[in-house]
């Protein structure tokens, strides 16, 4: 192989992957959860490094963060961000509640399909 025609590395190992759960979707869910846990760990490592790297240059970020006093605007921004995050996390429950509110059911959906098909 020359250096100019480098192909991307193979990402899938040869060999049938075993399933571990009764529902195959759970295997995929668990892998996603682990990947997400990994990303959280990556972020925590980065924040830790920011503090340490700043500390090494004489900037005590860790201390400044510990002593920081949030004003009202900052408190509100942070809480709004947390609520928005939870809203995204629970978007399917939001959808379910909205469907209940609008009395949307599978039957109604199928009925719409039929009506549109007929014109």
């Amino acid at each position, binding site marked *: 192989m020359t250096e100019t025609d480098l192909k991307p590395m193979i990402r899938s190992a040869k*060999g049938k992957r*075993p399933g571990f759960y009764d529902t195959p979707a759970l295997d995929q869910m668990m892998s996603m959860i682990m990947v997400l846990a990994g990303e959280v760990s990556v972020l925590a490592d*980065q924040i830790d490094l920011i503090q340490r790297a700043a500390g090494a240059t004489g900037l005590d970020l860790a201390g400044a963060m510990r002593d920081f006093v949030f004003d009202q605007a900052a408190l509100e921004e942070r809480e709004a961000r947390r609520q928005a995050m939870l809203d995204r996390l629970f978007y399917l429950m939001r959808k379910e509640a909205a469907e209940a509110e609008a009395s949307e059911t599978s039957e109604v959906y199928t009925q719409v399909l039929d009506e549109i098909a007929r014109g």
Partner: protein
Amino acid sequence: MLNTFQQAETAVLPKATLEEKARQEFAKSLKQFIQQGILPGLGPVYRTRAAKRFEKEAGREPVDRHDIRKAMVPDAYFQHYAAVNRISQELLWDGVIDSIDREGADLLARAKQASAANKGELRIDPAFQVPKYVSALDIHCMPGGYAGRDGESDLRLGALYDRGVFLYAMGYTGPDNDDMGRSVCDYILARLGGFRPKRILDMGCTVGHSTLPYKELFPEAEVWGIDVGGPQIAYAHARAGAMGLDVNFAQMNAEKTDFPDGHFDLVVSHILLHETSGKAMPRVFAECHRVLAPGGYMIHADLPPFDLMDPFTQFILDNETYYNNEPFWGAMRDLDQVKLARDAGFPADTIRFDTAPMAVMKFAAAEAAGYSQDAADSVADRDFVAGEFAPGGGWEVLIAHKPLDA
């Protein structure tokens, strides 16, 4: 124990960005957690509910590792253990591939330069036939496999192995991944009555992790590492060069090498045997006998046979067979290795199993990054626990001697 073990950098090791490094560290931490935080629960889960359920359904107690497997597979605790274990394996390779793909040609250029610094020979055989036991599945779920696809000699698969195996072993085998070779070297120096090999062959050497300590401890010796994986051999040659050692590497099959009769006085392997097959293993032993000179030693460091363990321990270890692309792992442990050595021509009274104490203490003494004395002590002092990487305290070695009058 907090595992802070760090791999030593070389010119050929893939370089990771901060994020890639953090993902790789996470995969290692996850494996450590599984070993320390989840694995210990399997015993109680088995005893208090899985075994009972099996008895109720089968009308008898579970007797062997196959029964225990049937009892455990439906249990949610075991399912999480096995699923997360597999996922950690997939994540660790993927995290290293990110670095290799991003580095691209830079890594190849560094490897080329390092390889040029190794005065030892490099033999890659373009017509080499990779045996089925290596090509059929990607061993350890390493994407691309040790030997690559269709005889490609892309040494990036060696780079993937170098970093990936350090994470897989969670650093237990030292900053240079060489604890097995180092431990066997120490064993030779301490236990084989002044034996000083002049020509050494390391079979199934992959990237030469365990090969290099032999050159370091026996600097006058001619050292050869062979492997069926062309990418591994090419990378091994470069890695040795990067570490300032002149070691020969060749793409060869341990079942039938190109070396003349009696060429070596020491033939070793490290975790090779369980990657071969029922037909290959006797041939490997026979080949060891053929290439050994009279007075020489054969030493295989692998894991002990199943008959030395209780069924639950066997079951835990056998998970590798089913979940980590290790087709021969279980079957190999059922073989009578002493008989194989005898059949290959080694006299019965020269064949024995022994333990080579781990060299991990030395990494702490040498102040290798992340290798604290506390951590080294706890690795060296622990008891054997099935499912943990590296058995407590030492490596199992099978030793046989070819008499001087052979």
